[in-house]
């Protein structure tokens, strides 16, 4: 765990030092110490915000992934399953289609609202049906609602090219051009999500033994589910709002964490969060340095590298049935 914290520190340093603008490390340190001495606002205007946001988003997705896989006892569960990404996407698309807004700040609010509304709908659908004790109705409700939302999103973007153009840029997932303005609210939601996730850790350990046994251990299943869902929704919603949907971190970070710290969720959840932060920053740095004066969005780097890494994990054949 200490090694992971160290790795996060190293990644943070790299993310501040490296970029598509090849300024010297001394200049970066100089600008960090003295913000007035920051030509072109490269350090404080670009590197610092994207590093902070990368850490936050990676942490959120890593933690959300670990909680998600713990809740559903499914190693292939991704935080997007509860319709959060689909809800955020639809809200962003509606924003562009109806009002024509694609500013970063408006997108942030829309994505946040869409994600939360979608997960409330999913939770409502599942609660109306067979209840919440088993994770299966939740996952099915999430998949069904996601499919509906994705269909609506597709309809809107395919019928209007302007919307498609704005959506295309957002859906890739990028840390480029983001500032810290207005991110405070997303960070607050993320913080609440982290608190819920920590509070959910003990329940996740009981749930790992199976629903029946968890109940036998005196676990309040409804409370455990609501807490977990709230954590996943808030964490994923704030991440999606900041960068757009970013795949693979929520899926792979828990697997890497499980390899390192085994199955105890009180270690697994934070480890997964730290790994998520490391991976996101690393991929962002790679995208920044391979594009010349332009950049490759982090979402693209992650999709390419994440796919390869995940195949590696599967090939090792050590995915434990949860």
């Amino acid at each position, binding site marked *: 765990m200490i090694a992971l914290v160290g790795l996060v520190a190293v990644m943070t340093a790299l993310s501040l030092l490296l*970029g*598509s*603008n090849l300024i010297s490390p001394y200049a970066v340190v100089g600008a960090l110490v003295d913000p007035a001495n920051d*030509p*072109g*606002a*490269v350090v*404080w*205007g*670009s*590197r610092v*915000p994207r590093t902070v946001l990368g850490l936050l988003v990676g942490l959120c997705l890593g933690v959300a992934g670990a909680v998600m896989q713990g809740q559903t006892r499914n190693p292939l569960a991704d935080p997007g399953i509860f319709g959060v990404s689909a809800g955020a996407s639809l809200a962003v698309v509606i924003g562009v289609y109806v009002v024509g807004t694609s*500013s*970063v*700040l408006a997108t942030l609010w829309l994505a946040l609202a869409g994600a939360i509304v979608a997960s409330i709908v999913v939770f409502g659908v599942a609660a109306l049906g067979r209840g919440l004790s088993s994770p299966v109705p939740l996952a099915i409700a999430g998949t069904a609602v996601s499919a509906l939302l994705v269909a609506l999103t597709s309809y809107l973007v395919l019928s*209007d*090219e*302007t919307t498609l*153009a704005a959506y295309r*840029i*957002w859906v890739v997932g*990028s840390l*480029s*051009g*983001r*500032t810290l*303005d207005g991110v405070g609210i997303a960070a607050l939601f993320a913080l609440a999500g982290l608190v819920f996730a920590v509070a959910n850790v003990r329940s996740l350990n009981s749930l790992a033994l199976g629903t029946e046994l968890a109940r036998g251990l005196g676990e309040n299943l409804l409370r455990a589910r609501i807490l977990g869902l709230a954590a996943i929704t808030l964490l994923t919603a704030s991440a999606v709002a900041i960068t757009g949907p970013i795949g693979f971190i929520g899926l792979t970070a828990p697997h890497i964490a499980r390899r390192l710290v085994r199955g105890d969720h009180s270690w697994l959840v934070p480890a997964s969060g730290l790994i998520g932060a490391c991976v996101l920053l690393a991929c962002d740095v790679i995208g*920044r340095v391979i*594009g*010349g*004066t*332009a*950049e490759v*969005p982090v979402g693209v780097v992650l999709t390419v590298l994440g796919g390869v890494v995940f195949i590696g994990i599967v090939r090792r054949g050590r995915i434990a049935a949860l």
Partner: protein
Amino acid sequence: MTTSRSRLAAALIAPVLTIALLAGCSSTPQADPAASADAAWSFTDDTGTTVTLDHRPERVASYADYAIGLLSYGLDPVAVFGRVDVASDDRFADYDLGDTAVVGNTYGEIDLEALAEAAPDLIVTGIYPTDREGTLDLTAPYYGFADMEQQAQLEKIAPVVAIEVGGAGSDVIDSLNRLSSALGVSDDTIATAKAEYDTAAADLTAAAAESDLEVTQMYASADGIYVVKPADEPETQLYSDLGVTFTDAHPDGDYYWDIYSWENAAQMMTGDVLLVNVEGYGAAELAAQPTFASHPALVAGQVHSWNGAALDYRSQAAHMEQLASILRESKAVS
């Protein structure tokens, strides 16, 4: 709404026209035997494709930009297809599209049935070179078409000719003029438009000389900044020729754009005037980017929303007047 209205109009008008034509044929068959419209017609376009018809095309369908050029010479297309919504495209504001069917409002989406209903003799679109040398890739679909399959279907409706949009702006205008002449526009009409254009061009040259400013033509989004390379875009090439100075940091490098990530913004901040593409970030969004907020032209408020004009004499005359007045009201900031 407007699309369906114009389609309806086309549907109503087509039979009326047919009747009128039939009536004309039957009642006065020898009224104008020497009319060139009845002679065989042949035209070789910029791709080297030769179209031969038994009469000069009277019914022309066109991609929006060239339709604007044809309209400026009084040739009303029977159908038009655009990359953006034609009804709300300001560039058509001066023209009456009442008799024109709008058969496409999105790139590559052309309503083939509606187009066939308009019964064009000829379809006009463009082709962009794939590099600075002007290479034309004829295995790829023409500009405005989705794919080769669609192009083949269009060719079944009517032969297709393409205007090359690359290199010198004046060559693109000449190409449109050559087509317009072949379609029956008189030399006088073209000369009148050219006179208006030459006046505007001379005025732009004068404005550029008095103001001595550097103009940056760009598109910006969350990805970063795309700066147009003046020699690669026909319009900026034309204005450069007329004496306007454009930002041109890397004339050789990549074709058409130089792309800068936001943290590299400082490398392109040499302009005094920013012409920002209407489809990307505007002044407010640019000011929200910390690495761009200090751009002297942005600070001075010398940012103008800019749309690509059609490459014909009249559109260019208007666009050049607009640029000349922007140059005259701006001051040097860097």
